[in-house]
């Protein structure tokens, strides 16, 4: 592998995260101010002026660093806006980490934001570059693209479609049950399995409850050099590994790809584990915030992230091994995209925020017993043609 990694070189010393939801009364500016103010309130020794540089992640809520500098009235700071599909927020975080690790800056903030609910549509809407009109991405919706996993997975591993359906239902049920315990979640209610399994069909076998919601939100993280972390907080969160992969997008044109895995995620996870020195993710990772955009995605991700054997994740899911209190590790203890919706630029940082709360013992009803290492994961694009991000964070140095 070609990454050197920045294990234990930088730490998060403050975070902010707005409630996610249909914020008809909050603008993009409001969300950015709310998230960053929350962060600064938790680290009284730092103000916006003390931050040396900012990285802003947003996919469609504005272009350029001005999206952040204008509402915060930042005085002549370097602000970089990044975009990398659904990994946009995580990409802002990754670049901010490198900015500190390189020594270029002492204090950097990564901010993510997305205001989706002003579009007038219930799903994600993205604008395409002018094209010849032949690409399936221009017409096939995201739930349809991810629903391709379901029949392919059943076929390859000879899984009874009824069992797969139950596993998909379990993913939604689990994440909503977790989200019910989270005051920041968009949906804070448990949903009975019968209701999930019989929800109106959107694409393939995916019903409404197999899809993550659409919401507005913002989250941010303040990053400093690890050795200075304790100057700002008594409970910092250390960055163990950050990995990112953009695939060759050949799955959609190569018959060898079988729509039962995301090779991008497998490559990305291997890099992140190596950087972090993780050799057995199933036992070493306490919690994983993964990209549950659609329920079959989470099932496949359990295998790509090394939490389940190939062809076995549907069974592990059904046995509750990734539930809060399950015997492996907690997956999406905060409720995931299922409960939070997916304000694209904010999601990656929202995932880090759950790790932050868990390590600090501030996760309330969701609090895990002695969590040490956590993982966040984003997937951007669709099966066969996507980007992936994996971060490993820890409560302690070393």
């Amino acid at each position: 592998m070609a990454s050197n990694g920045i294990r234990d070189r930088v730490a998060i010393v403050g975070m902010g995260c707005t409630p996610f939801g249909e914020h008809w009364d909050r603008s993009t500016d409001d969300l950015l101010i709310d998230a960053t103010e929350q962060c600064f309130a938790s680290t009284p020794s730092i103000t916006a002026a003390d931050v040396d540089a900012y990285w802003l992640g947003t996919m469609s809520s504005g272009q350029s660093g001005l999206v952040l500098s204008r509402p915060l009235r930042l005085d002549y700071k370097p602000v970089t806006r990044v975009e990398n599909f659904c990994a946009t927020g995580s990409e802002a975080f990754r670049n901010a980490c490198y900015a500190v690790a390189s020594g270029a800056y002492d204090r950097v903030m990564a901010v993510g934001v997305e205001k989706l609910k002003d579009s007038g549509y219930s799903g994600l809407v993205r604008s395409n570059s002018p094209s010849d009109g032949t690409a399936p991405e221009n017409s096939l919706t995201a739930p349809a693209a991810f629903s391709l996993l379901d029949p392919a997975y059943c076929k390859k591993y000879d899984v009874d479609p009824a069992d797969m359906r139950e596993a998909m239902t379990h993913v939604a049920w689990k994440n909503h049950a977790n989200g019910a315990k989270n005051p920041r979640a968009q949906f804070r209610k448990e949903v009975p399995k019968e209701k999930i399994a019989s929800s109106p069909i959107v694409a393939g076998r995916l019903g409404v409850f197999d899809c993550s919601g659409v919401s507005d939100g913002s989250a941010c993280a303040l990053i400093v050099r690890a050795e200075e972390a304790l100057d700002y907080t008594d409970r910092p969160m250390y960055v163990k590994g950050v990995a990112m992969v953009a695939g060759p997008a050949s799955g959609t044109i190569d018959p060898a790809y079988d729509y039962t895995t995301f090779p991008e995620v497998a490559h990305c996870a291997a890099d992140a584990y190596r950087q972090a020195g993780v050799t057995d993710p199933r036992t070493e990772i306490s919690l994983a915030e993964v990209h549950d955009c659609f329920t079959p995605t989470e099932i496949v991700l359990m295998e790509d992230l090394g939490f389940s054997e190939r062809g076995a994740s549907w069974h592990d899911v059904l046995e509750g091994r990734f539930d809060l209190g399950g015997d492996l590790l907690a997956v999406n203890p905060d409720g995931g995209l299922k409960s939070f919706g997916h304000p694209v630029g904010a999601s990656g940082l929202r995932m880090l925020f759950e790790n932050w709360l868990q390590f600090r013992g501030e996760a309330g009803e969701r609090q895990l017993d002695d969590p040490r290492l956590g993982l966040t994961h984003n997937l951007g694009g669709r099966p066969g043609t996507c980007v992936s991000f994996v971060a490993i964070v820890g409560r302690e140095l070393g």
Partner: protein
Amino acid sequence: MTPMNGLLAYGAYIPRHRLQHAELGAALGTRPAPGSRSVASYDEDTTSLGVEAARRALAHGGGDGWDGFIYFATTAPAYADKTNATAIHAALDLGHRGFAVDLAGAARGGVGALRAAMTTGGLAVLADIRTGRPGSADERDGGDAAAAFLFGEGAEPIAVPIGQAAATAEFLDRWRAPGEAASSGWEERFGFESYLPLVKDAGARALERAGIEQADRVIVSSPSARTAAAAAKAFPARIPSELPAVGYAGAADLGVKLAAALDQAEPDETLLLISAADGCDAVVLRTTAALPRCRATEPASTQSAAARDVAYATFLTWRGVIEREAPRRPEPDRPAAPASARSESWKFGFVGSRCTECGRVHAPPTRVCSGCHAVDHMERAPLADKAGTIATYTVDRLAFSPSPPMIDAVVDFDGGGRCTLELADAVPEDVEIGTRVEMTFRRLYTTGGVHNYFWKARPVRNGQ
């Protein structure tokens, strides 16, 4: 009379869907009648119908070396101002040398395209979609179809023209202002009385030039049903031809019937074609010994048999008479002209690329090989005539589609290559992993007045 080119190949295309007259009657509360009409799907227009017929005509490869002349006739052109035959030319992957022209507007264009191709050589493509006011005879008795005929100086024609004649007169029998969805007609008897002498005159002269008194088969087409019946009576055939239950197909009508007759004719038969539309054109063909070897691979009658009924409300929706509530998604962007021009051979011709270093097929074509990463070592990989197998699929109930739900499938082509494509002429029950598909040229959608043509996959009818 200039020397005529021989008929080298032909093909017909009849859309999959039928509107039963009984369904029409039930929906409108009118007297139910037996029979049906063919219906172009929501994603078909006269250009795409023409492509499908032309592909069938050229399937034998009998067109090798032809000069790429295309005469395209329709009463329902997809575009005005812009030539529609160019899209057909591109979909046939004919390169940039050639001639492509529309004979658009009136039914007489059909026989006009045939006569032009006979004279100069080339492909006559006849396609039509017929509409009428709800409850009208035009709506009931019309039909959507296409046929194509390749003429040239090839060594082995399947039929040769041996006589033709024309008559022209100006009278108001049937008309339609540009943009109107239905045509109007004068009192039927007036048109009939006007046509009859023209038909008798042209028919007789054509037979005389052919040196025969009676033709073995007679093919009659006219927007005036009464005239057609009278013409058939005036020029009786020795051998009856069984015609597909399509309906009157406008500029394609004569062609569809000729194709059906050629499906059945034996060598050395004479065929009298009579088109009575704003005058009369009569052509006599004599079939040759080559005909049985070069018949259309998909006879019109078998296409007609493999039909699927549509509800009247669906028919009206497809023709734009009813605007149904669409899924709450933005309309797709219109295709960009420069991008479409750059990808002409992909978008219209469905030509991918094959790596000359490792053989991997790329659809759409790319410059860098996804297998061996060789750069600019690609050759053309035509995929339009390849069959494929569905690797996985979905039914997208959220996507924008002129006729939801949209079905998409990941298709692996025989001989290599994979592409995600919309399915055409399919319902969800038709599809599973392993389903065999063939390619068909369609109009995905129209935005901002721009038709987005591309290829779809269609479940193979007999599972070959």
